[in-house]
């Protein structure tokens, strides 16, 4: 047992984990209870679990929770209080999601790319997330607004 002090979406959490290498994904979903970050593959191939850690895109399914201690974690729930992040607005305007399951990860990837100063097609080259529904064309349209 270990207690990890984590900061997620601006809130501090003291989380008891059996092992400090529990991936951040499961700490966020099962122990903290924020379920917007999704499990897709567990092997860093699909990107559904993408979060921002100190502004950098990370794949929470393989990111040890202990490595997030002392850093600021942002999940889809913390991207904006009212869905007002430009990526969220662009996603609604272009009616991007279908089942929507992968979109938290896609939007966090886009938000990370924007934070790194990218725009439009530069953002798109960063989006490698899998979307089995096949919303890629509307993702392109939405990213073109950013």
């Amino acid at each position: 047992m270990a207690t990890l002090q984590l900061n997620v979406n601006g809130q501090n959490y003291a989380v008891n984990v059996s092992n400090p290498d529990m991936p951040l994904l499961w700490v966020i979903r099962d122990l903290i209870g924020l379920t917007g970050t999704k499990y897709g593959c567990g092997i860093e191939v699909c990107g559904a679990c993408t979060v921002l850690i100190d502004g950098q895109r990370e794949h929470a399914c393989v990111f040890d929770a202990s490595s997030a201690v002392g850093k600021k974690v942002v999940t889809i729930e913390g991207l904006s209080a009212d869905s007002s992040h430009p990526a969220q607005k662009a996603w609604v305007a272009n009616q991007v999601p279908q089942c929507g399951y992968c979109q938290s990860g896609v939007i966090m990837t886009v938000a990370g790319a924007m934070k790194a100063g990218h725009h439009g097609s530069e953002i798109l080259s960063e989006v490698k997330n899998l979307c089995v529904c096949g919303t890629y064309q509307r993702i392109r349209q939405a990213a073109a607004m950013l």
Partner: protein
Amino acid sequence: MTTQTQPSRRGFITAATGGLTLSFLLPEINRLGELQAAVPGTVNTWLQIATDNTITLTIGASEMGQGSFSALAQILAEDLMVDYAKIRTVQAQPSVTSTRPVGASINTVGSSVTRTNFWKMRDAGAIARELLVQAAMNLKGDQTRANFIASNATVKHVPSNTLLAYGSLAAAAAALAPPSSAPLVPDSQFRLIGKTQTRIDIPEKVNGKAKYGIDIRIPGMVYAVIKHCPSFGGTLASQPTTPRGMLAVVPTQVIAGTGRGTEVTGAVNAVAVVGPNTWDTWQAVKSLNVSWNLPANAANLNNAKFMADADALLASATPYVAGGANPPGTLYTVESMGTPGTAIAASPKKLDATYTLPYVAHACMEVLNCTVNYVPGISCEVWAPTQSARAVLQLAMLITGMAANQIVVRTTYLGGGLGRKAETDFVSQAIQVAMAVRKPVMLMWPREQDFTRDQYRPMAKVHVTAGLDASANITGWSYRNVSPSILGQRGSVLGPKGDSQGIEAANALPYNFGARLTEWVSHPSPIPVGFWRSVGASINTFAVECMIDELAAAAGMDGYNFRRAKLTDPRWIRVLDEAAKLGNWTSPVSSGRARGIAIGTAFNSIVAEVVEISAATATGVKINRVSCAIDCYVAVNPGGIQAQLQGGIVHAINAALYGQQTFVNGAAQASNFNKSRMIRLQEMPQIDTFIIPNPGAADRALNIGGAGELGVPTFAPALANAYFKLTGNRLRGLPLFPGATMGGL
């Protein structure tokens, strides 16, 4: 507050509780229709207009990204004369008995929700509107209907210039008997139908608020992770020891009605480890030492054997006998006109080709999962991302022995369904685990289990022979599809035409074939198979449209012109023309590129695609553009149809390029996305779509077509036909790049 129940001729029931409630039964498509009769007289949908002016549509369909909820609200709003955005949609819970507005299930399969409920929603809207108008007429003491106008959720009494909100009329309207019919809004006055509307579910899908099955959290809940025998048909040999820190290891058996092929009722084919959270439990599963009994036939459960069996059945199979046992390997004659064998033999040009398609996994983004809170003797609550909520209810009744009114089924959003979540094996496991541990429990399948214990799109081998005369007429067409039976694995006794799912899009084709023979043979492979987006059409349209292209080439004709000359249905010709126009078929293609075309049908719609490709190598091909035209008779939400076609095309690209599952000793080999590649955004072609304008929405005789699965069937043959033009090589087996892997992000 009054309560009254008054069935009308059309089956609408008003039951007022604080306003006007119309309850009714929406017809549903059941892919197992041959097995299960519809439950008669069951109410499954409620329209409520409350005295506070809220309008609520409670409906039992599942939302998996296809936009059905939004489309149904859109249709309802048209004739109810209200703003579409004002309609609240509520996910119903299934019920086999309730007449209260808790909702019920509607199987969400077969691209069916919008198309099969179009008229029912329109009637409901119109009848509710007329009840409200009648209430206004009574209130104003004026029985002249022409003096009243319903619009924007109000009834206006023109002579007195009085506006009455629907909510203020709802209680009075509830006391009236619903008319058996009411006038519908003429097509020319449509405000909503045929116009793109935004989807209701999208706002909560961009901020993490949308709750999928896997997001259910119950106080005190525990987490179960499944581990099946690696080989299909295997069973648990001995009860494993519960690992330290874990609550239990629960053996789960195959419940009647949930197992397919190798997975027989009563077999203990998996264990679920139960623990405090997903990760710790999953780790315990990974290191759990489980011994399994492999099936005696395990060595035969491999691809070489499946292919050899298919080849043998293409050469020779025992015909169906009415009333006979008709075991797997039986030959069914689907349609027969003339003697194609003789006609082809006498033709100057004879074509003969065999097309091979693999098993393909569904791989929904959200893995299978289900949450159950079982309180012995009291209640059982089930949260499931399911396409078959009523089947879930019936399953819970069967396993728990509880009455329907002790069970609550809550359909969550589905993170993709694709046909896999119409099955209930995962639900049955969650209920068994909950009954064993007596705590609220979520059972999840790690991605590796989801890939390796799927109910796959069936493999198939299809042999086609055809003849051409000197004037490029097709003289004969002989078609034999050998594939495992989806319905057969569900206990259906197949009739003389075989499996209705297996022959989809193979028969009654509007081509002038001359003599024709269409046959289907049930392949004996017991690997579990199931419904996969577009089902049989994903197999048959590939074989049919590739052979048509081979015939065109043999006749020295362009693929588009050849099809146009042979098609006998003007609607098909129109769709073909529109796809060709959209794909610039008649314009020269850029250097290094080639185009292919294909047309087909599924779920009453007709669709054609032009695929433009370049840069074919041993490991890849660039798909530059896909142009898709559809005739679905009535297009409710064109933007939604466009999204579904785009999505269906991506589904088909993934399958055509990379999708396959293979087996060694009954064990599936591709266990995650890294071993079963799918396209990323960078590989996405430009997709253009065209929807044939409605031929007349107000004609009830028209058979409305679906859209959700329609992007799929014609992509692979159009790709193969483009590939031939680009490379000179016929592509007769899918996927194009078997075994393709994908790296990390």
